[in-house]
């Protein structure tokens, strides 16, 4: 039987997390169907059909699904479940929200945030904020899995899957979407950026994040923050990188004025190259940094900006 992957999108664009979840599903060895659930999202289904490795795209279009509210998502996925051996979703706030409902309704344990597939029923996943890695075997029967997308690389190439419409079941009517406040930014999203520059308590204020933004603009980087900077009210919580925020693994992670609490390291230690800029040379962040600069950030960051300008960035 096939695997079903739930697509991450905002009705306008397909998110990277989808292709990465497909990459995990490929390792289960079964044909893959991709479910695009949303409202007025035919364009997303079209984009999804061109992903490599997909056999079929299922499109469920209904106003109740527009914001991927958990209760109608559960109804839809549980209805499709009999045809599948495995159901996978990215461990985004959407996936984390609806998937355990699906698992409970199917009466199977969920395997959360896998970082590797060892065999079609055995997976690795971080526990204790990434301080230990658990290898876990799911019982026979359906697998319900969420995928830590930073651990998987999208498959190269393109495909041409058929798009098939599926009916959305009636909205259970127990929950309604009221509104949302999304952070507006011209910069890439934290979870898909190739370069991230993050600030900690060392930045001293929210205004000082402008220093990081100047570098971010030159490098097309996303801007993040430590929990300490969020707790201090410098920046909103969706900036937060760490165990309790977003888990990221960019090619380059620049930590500025961040001491390196375990909870922050848990969110970024799988980055390819880590840079630490901090005036305290005993900060734990230096123990995991590939390049460390012991300096006052208020001097070092403008110097970096000048150097980048000089080099034509």
């Amino acid at each position: 039987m096939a695997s079903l992957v739930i697509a991450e999108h905002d009705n306008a664009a397909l998110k990277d997390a989808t292709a990465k979840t497909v990459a995990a599903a490929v390792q289960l060895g079964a044909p893959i169907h991709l479910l695009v659930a949303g409202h007025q999202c035919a364009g997303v289904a079209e984009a999804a059909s061109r992903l490599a490795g997909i056999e079929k795209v299922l499109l469920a279009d209904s106003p109740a699904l527009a914001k991927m509210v958990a209760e109608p998502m559960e109804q839809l996925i549980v209805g499709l479940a009999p045809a599948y051996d495995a159901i996978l979703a990215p461990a985004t706030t959407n996936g984390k929200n609806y998937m355990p409902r699906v698992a409970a309704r199917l009466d199977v344990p969920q395997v959360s945030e896998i970082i590797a597939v060892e065999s079609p029923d055995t997976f690795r996943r971080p526990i204790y904020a990434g301080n230990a890695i658990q290898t876990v075997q799911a019982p026979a029967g359906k697998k319900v899995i969420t995928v830590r997308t930073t651990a998987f690389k999208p498959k190269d190439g393109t495909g041409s899957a058929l798009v098939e419409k599926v009916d959305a079941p009636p909205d259970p009517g127990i929950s309604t979407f009221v509104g949302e406040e999304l952070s507006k930014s011209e910069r890439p999203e934290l979870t898909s950026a190739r370069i991230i520059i993050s600030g900690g308590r060392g930045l001293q204020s929210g205004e000082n994040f402008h220093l990081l933004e100047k570098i971010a603009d030159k490098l097309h980087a996303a801007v993040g923050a430590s929990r300490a900077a969020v707790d201090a009210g410098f920046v909103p919580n969706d900036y937060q990188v760490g165990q309790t925020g977003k888990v990221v693994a960019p090619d380059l992670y620049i930590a500025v004025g961040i001491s390196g609490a375990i909870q922050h390291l848990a969110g970024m230690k799988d980055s390819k190259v880590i840079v630490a800029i901090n005036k305290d040379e005993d900060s734990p962040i230096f123990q995991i940094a590939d390049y460390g600069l012991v300096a006052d950030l208020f001097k070092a960051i403008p110097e970096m900006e000048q150097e980048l300008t000089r080099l034509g960035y």
Partner: protein
Amino acid sequence: MKVLVPVKRVIDFNVKVRVKADQTGVDLANVKMSMNPFDEIAVEEALRLREKGKATEVIVVSIGPQAAQETIRTALAMGADRGILVKADADVEPLAVAKILKGVCEAEQPGLVILGKQAIDDDSNQTGQMLAALLGWPQGTFAHKIEPGDGVVRVEREIDGGLQTVELKLPAVVTTDLRLNEPRYASLPNIMKAKKKPIAEKTPADYGVDATPRLKVLKVSEPPKRVAGVKVKTAAELIDKLKNEAGVI
């Protein structure tokens, strides 16, 4: 309206966990245990609802070994009214926890269940959602703000791109995120008072639940270690290394 708050006993937030040499798990011997921090936030929120007159009683439930009674006492010392300990010596998976909690909900009929979005030991982030699904209730996960209204509750949620607000028909399940509130400390008189508050003891079987784990943990290992790299002296040297040595900019 009764509010039910499930709490879990976990390794303290500040303890550096160590993987056992035989790779069967992490070392729990002589390690400080505490209430899961997200559950502490849940207890605090329930107490605030009671203080605002929105809740009549705060009931705390924990599923775990006899020692989980201490975790319940902590919540009682914060101000919760009474406790239920569902005794289980082995690890209980989120699905079984959700099934037990469903039984507790059927017996206690709470209007709202508030619990942590995840436990900081197994990091599953499943229990609240599973409980809501088993009961056929709506859920507001990763709550940033909770506003009970007439027969409904509005929950502002932390989502990847910012904040989202949903309205849920009561009864409902809410899971807490970090910024919901700052939990209070228990005062000494309240700690003394908590010793007299009742804790009922139950077993999973009382709720007709088989708590045997269904996932098989084959091993628990150390994550790959990163080693410290080099120190650079200037910002210009740093940019040069990133461009010409690492090739990432």
